[in-house]
């Protein structure tokens, strides 16, 4: 929906008048809303985790998919939120009601700490810094494990309630909130500026807009919402123990890159879908009993490897993402005319990001390449 032209104020009128993709989205939300009533407790727990991943993925998409500043270490923000409230709770007895907002604040500051230097550093170098920052923090965490719980994790974090259904709806609330915030920002004028920054920063300047302001805003917003999710996570899914592997490790940062790319970068909704799909796929593989021929081993024994290979396949063969591809196919089969996630004939957000990244790369290398 990056190229969503004006639909006027009347687009909230009646569900049947909405474009098909909006209808599909509403159905999806409805399904999510009633899910716990239809599935087992274990599956509810799983969906809860999947929802958090979806929120993390949306937060990544909001800055990296939209402004083109590709972050390879978004886990830093989730952990900033989660660990702030967890540490305050465990060591100082601070209630989550206070801890969570503080977590959001710390995460927002982390967003600033990354966003400001990011102005000076472009393209791949920016990504390198974002890759490395959480690794530094993680190592310090392990070093000061007395305080942070190190690799084993911080134990004794207060949980709102052990009830899986209640936890699910808390997560769903966070999901809806994040979805609303990100959709509001990206569909507003700020969103147009974000994508313009990704396309051509000079054009943004020529329009009388300060790109630095918007770039930092994107980072801080993304970090704050991601940190909020991380903070709530600490008091729900973490089930009393917050470990780095859930929220700070490199794998988390990688997951929140792959999920939006799979689902469709630069759309927010694609990130949400990608996050859910990704988590559920991973979970399916963890349980699959099917034996792989020749190797004589069950899928679930090598689930991570299989999952990574599938991801590689997706990245290679379906780079624009699932949601945009589905929309294109639906458009071809159905009758709705201009419903592309990209404006007709225009470039997709992924392409734009990649091209912009490549241009910065070429300039950095000082060469006169391609």
């Amino acid at each position, binding site marked *: 929906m990056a190229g969503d*032209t004006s639909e006027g104020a009347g687009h909230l009128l009646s569900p049947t008048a909405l474009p098909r993709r909006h209808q599909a989205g509403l159905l999806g939300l409805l399904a999510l809303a009633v899910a716990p009533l239809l599935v087992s407790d274990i599956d509810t727990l799983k969906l809860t985790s999947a929802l958090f991943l979806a929120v993390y993925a949306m937060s990544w998409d909001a800055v990296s998919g939209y402004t083109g500043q590709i972050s390879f270490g978004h886990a830093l923000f989730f952990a900033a939120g989660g660990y702030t409230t967890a540490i305050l709770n465990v060591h100082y007895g601070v209630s989550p009601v206070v801890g969570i907002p503080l977590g959001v604040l710390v995460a927002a500051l982390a967003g600033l700490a990354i966003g400001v230097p990011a102005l000076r550093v472009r393209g791949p170098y920016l990504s390198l810094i974002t890759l490395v920052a959480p690794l530094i923090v993680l190592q310090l965490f392990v070093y000061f494990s007395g305080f942070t719980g190190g690799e084993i994790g911080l134990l004794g974090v207060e949980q709102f309630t052990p009830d899986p259904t209640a936890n699910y709806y808390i997560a769903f609330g966070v999901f809806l909130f994040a979805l609303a915030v990100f959709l509001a920002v990206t569909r507003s*004028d*700020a969103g*147009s500026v974000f994508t313009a920054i990704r*396309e051509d920063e000079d054009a*943004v*300047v020529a*329009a009388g807009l300060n*790109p630095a302001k918007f770039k930092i805003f994107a980072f801080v917003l993304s970090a704050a919402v991601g940190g909020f999710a991380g903070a709530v996570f600490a008091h729900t899914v973490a089930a009393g123990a917050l470990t780095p592997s859930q929220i700070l490790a490199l794998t988390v940062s990688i997951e929140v890159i792959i999920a939006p790319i799979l689902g469709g970068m630069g759309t927010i909704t694609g990130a949400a879908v990608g996050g859910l799909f990704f988590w559920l796929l991973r979970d399916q593989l963890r349980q699959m009993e099917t034996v792989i021929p020749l190797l004589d081993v069950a899928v679930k024994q090598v689930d991570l490897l299989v999952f990574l290979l599938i991801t590689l396949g997706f990245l290679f063969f379906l780079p624009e993402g699932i949601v945009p591809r589905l929309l294109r196919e639906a458009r071809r089969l159905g009758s709705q005319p201009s419903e592309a996630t990209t404006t007709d004939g225009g*470039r997709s957000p992924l392409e734009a990001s990649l091209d912009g990244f490549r241009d910065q790369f070429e300039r950095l290398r000082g060469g006169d390449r391609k």
Partner: protein
Amino acid sequence: MSADAVDGETAARTGTGSDGSYGPDDGILVLEDLTKRFGGLTAVDGLSFAVEREEILGFIGPNGAGKSTTFDCVIGTHPPTSGTVWYDGEDGTGVPAYEMVERGMARTFQSFRPLRDRNVVENVKLGLIRNRLFSTAGLRRETYDRAVALCERVGLGDQLEQTPDELPHAGMLRLELGRALATDPGLLLIDEPFAGLSGVEVADVSKLFLTLREEGITLVVVDHNMRGLLELIDRAIVINFGSKIAEGTPAEIRRDPTVQQAYLGGGGT
């Protein structure tokens, strides 16, 4: 407002700042002793001139004369090494480009740079967005309508939904103008608009420029080959090697031996 009618006025101002220096109120845009050095290279060398309100000024010089660099310093892309830029009476030296645009100065790019991920009307809309983080999405309809009006103003009313890839060369120029006009400028710096246009298109675009001037916008048009330009402009500044070598009406410029020698090679337009 042809060149001859203001001949008497401009005659007094021919030549480098005859009374010595320029001040902030000498025009909507005033450069005083503007210099820009890149390492050992001096691209702009003590350039001084004033742009009168609501005139159409030609900024002429051969390739490499320093025209684009001057633009860059004026609009704030690069701060000058020394000298002063006044816009609308206020000091604008070294002010960042986006802020100069907010103050009312806009420019078009010689190599058209539209945003390729959106259509014409969305491109123009970008210029209408205010430099604020939070703006109500509900204003979109009004902004959209204003963008459509702007497109019609520059002659793109029939191509609203097209993407820049689908526009012909002249259409891209109009899009550049539309985006610049969206920022509600008082001064428009136009970089080499006539390159690649046919005679008819040049005439059309010139008419558009005259209309804009009638609406109160001052225009500074840069070109290096004067084709079509001399009929359009009221006055011209000619520079070479970063310095002003002549100033005056088109008629005076044509006759000026320094100009002819510098690059016209003895021929006129």
